[in-house]
């Protein structure tokens, strides 16, 4: 995989349609411009939820290109790309399903806590219980899916806001993570693998926590997490734009009553979306444990907001019904670039947060204005 080709705009997903009569159908209003004047095309572009994120990602990339303060101008090298892409990957694997869930009209605040807790399950099963790593991976995924099922069932059956339900779940996981690790590991806040060999560890590591495409320019290679990110993004784009389920996601978030009346299984759709976020959190936990061979009890805490920021920056409407999986992935890239760019620019890393705050505000403002315009404009 050629590194630079992937920079900023991943042409594989929702870029301009390369071939065929029809584009990715990424947004609910998305579609083939099919001719018409430039103004018409412009309105069509504005209507695409990922449009703002694409412009934003390019802008952020250019800003850090200009402020790059490293001796060899690392920003434009494979090293630079690898550095921000691997951060973006961790955000993006979550941002895409979180974005889908947001389009479906719900929040999941338990995601950050879930990533950490999943890593701890891996560490306990592999390190303490000496399970085969693959069996541990399977159990962790099953646990992730089960958590989403419970979250989804509670939200859809009780009618309580998902914000509260998943916030409660978040605190449960956080308590379990910290308390559980302390108890198992006698006062330490992390669980690492001891020197003994662990069955299945090497092959599982190759798939989830390894690296690829080593070269003289980049001895460490790219992390496989980046491939998982691309895979999750493609899956999200496809599901949202090209499946019945994707149509239902827009519908349950846009108007759940209308969706129910047309026969959309509203509860099932939402439950599956919750299962998507929690399973993705399990994936992140698996990847991070297999990469580092350690699980830290406070891992992932607070990250749920980055995922939500990425989704919102990517054009997902907080109130549901509108958004883009590709946009959420772009949002994750923006966050990854911001974290790495601040370092390369030689700024203090505390500026990360200020930068994110500004980006978030700008993105939401631009998205809201363009979206309103596009909704008003008749083509």
């Amino acid at each position, binding site marked *: 995989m050629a590194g630079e080709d992937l920079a900023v705009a991943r042409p594989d997903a929702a870029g301009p349609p390369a071939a065929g*009569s*029809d584009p990715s*159908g990424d947004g*609910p*209003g*998305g*579609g*083939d411009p099919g001719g018409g004047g430039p103004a018409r095309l412009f309105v*069509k572009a504005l*209507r695409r939820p990922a449009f703002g994120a694409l412009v934003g990602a390019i802008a952020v990339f250019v800003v850090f290109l200009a402020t790059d303060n490293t001796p060899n101008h690392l920003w434009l090298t494979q090293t630079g790309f690898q550095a921000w892409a691997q951060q973006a990957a961790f955000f993006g694997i979550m941002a895409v399903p979180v974005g889908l869930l947001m389009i479906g009209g719900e929040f999941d605040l338990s995601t950050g806590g879930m990533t950490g807790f999943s890593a701890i399950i891996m560490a306990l099963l592999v390190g303490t219980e000496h399970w085969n790593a693959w069996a541990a991976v399977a159990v962790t995924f099953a646990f992730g899916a089960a958590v989403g099922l419970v979250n989804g069932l509670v939200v859809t059956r009780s009618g309580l806001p998902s914000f509260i339900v998943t916030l409660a779940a978040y605190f449960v996981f956080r308590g379990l993570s910290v308390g559980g690790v302390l108890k198992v590991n006698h006062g330490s806040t992390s669980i690492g693998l001891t020197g003994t060999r662990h069955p299945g560890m090497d092959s599982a590591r190759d798939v989830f926590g390894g690296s690829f495409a080593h070269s003289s320019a980049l001895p460490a290679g790219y992390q496989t997490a980046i491939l998982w990110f691309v895979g999750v993004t493609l899956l999200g784009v*496809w599901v949202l*734009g*090209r*499946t*019945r389920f*994707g*149509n*239902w996601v*827009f*519908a349950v978030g*846009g*108007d759940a*009553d*209308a*969706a129910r*009346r*047309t*026969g*959309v299984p509203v509860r099932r759709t939402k439950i599956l979306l919750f299962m998507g976020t929690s399973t993705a959190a399990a994936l992140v936990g698996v990847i991070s444990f297999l990469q580092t061979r350690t699980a830290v009890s406070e891992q992932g805490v607070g990250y749920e907001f980055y995922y939500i920021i990425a989704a919102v920056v990517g054009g997902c*409407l907080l109130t549901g*019904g*509108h958004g883009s999986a590709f946009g959420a992935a772009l949002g994750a890239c923006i966050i990854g670039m911001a974290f790495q760019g601040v370092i390369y620019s030689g700024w203090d890393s505390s500026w990360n947060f200020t930068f994110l705050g500004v980006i978030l505000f700008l993105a939401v403002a631009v998205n809201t204005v363009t979206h309103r315009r596009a*909704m*008003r404009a*008749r*083509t």
Partner: protein
Amino acid sequence: MTATGSAAAEAADVSGDPRTPLLAAEAVGKYFGSVRALHDVSLSVRAGQVMCVLGDNGAGKSTLIKILSGVFPPDAGQVRVNGEAVRFHSPRDARAAGIATVFQDLAMVPLMAVWRNFFLGSEPTKGWGPWRRFDVPAAREQTRAALAAMGVEVRDPDQPAGTLSGGERQSVAIARAVHFGARVLILDEPTSALGVKQAGAVLRRVAQARERGLGVVFITHNPHHAHPVGDRFVVLNRGRLLGDYPKAEVTRPELVRLMSGGAELDALSHELERIPGTGLEPESGAEPPPAPAAAGQTRDEPRPRADPPPPGA
């Protein structure tokens, strides 16, 4: 998926007597707790017929629609489709039997493109197993064709449904029901929030559906909209049926009188006539029609305006 369901319904229909009502309610009743919402209501609709259900707010129209469209079953009496007693457990069952309901709030998602809305819940798919996918090109093409066939002009099927006018949205919803092989169309107050011109467009779609041999149940509180397009009229008042009239036997003013419960209206006219003397004149004057801007936005039925028909109506 739905295609097979409606095909089966059609097949069953062909074998029957064409004079058998497509959809009939027989002495249906419904209670909500101790409140009797509907009592002993019967009506039927045949192919190529528009059955108008008239009634003021709270007359039981919504309850009746919900029974006919499968939202809930009646507590008394029964519903028949093609002469056979049925018990719907969900709107899905009703739809499978060829009964499509266009609800007042249209079951359309404003942020979604027209073509995505058109196939919502019944998306055409192609492929197999994990490659089974929403057939987007087919959905777009069929939306265009179905709208054109019903004479609905939507400039761009990609535009979000929320940017359509209220009349356009109603028309799209009707075209959608017809496209999915509905034999009976139940329309819930399709013209209530619309201006005169848009209401006219919707009434044209109703006539078009009738020409295609559908049975239409047209629920409204507006006799002026019902009378031109209806073939039969039933009037509901406080959960009871006041009467069932073929078009030949009832005039528009009579409908208006029936609807508001004859004597009550007379009393109201008397009351209003006295008002000029009391200095309340400006209030009793003609109230402006609902602003078109509110079209499609209001979920409530328009307020029961004290607008007895102008004498000339």
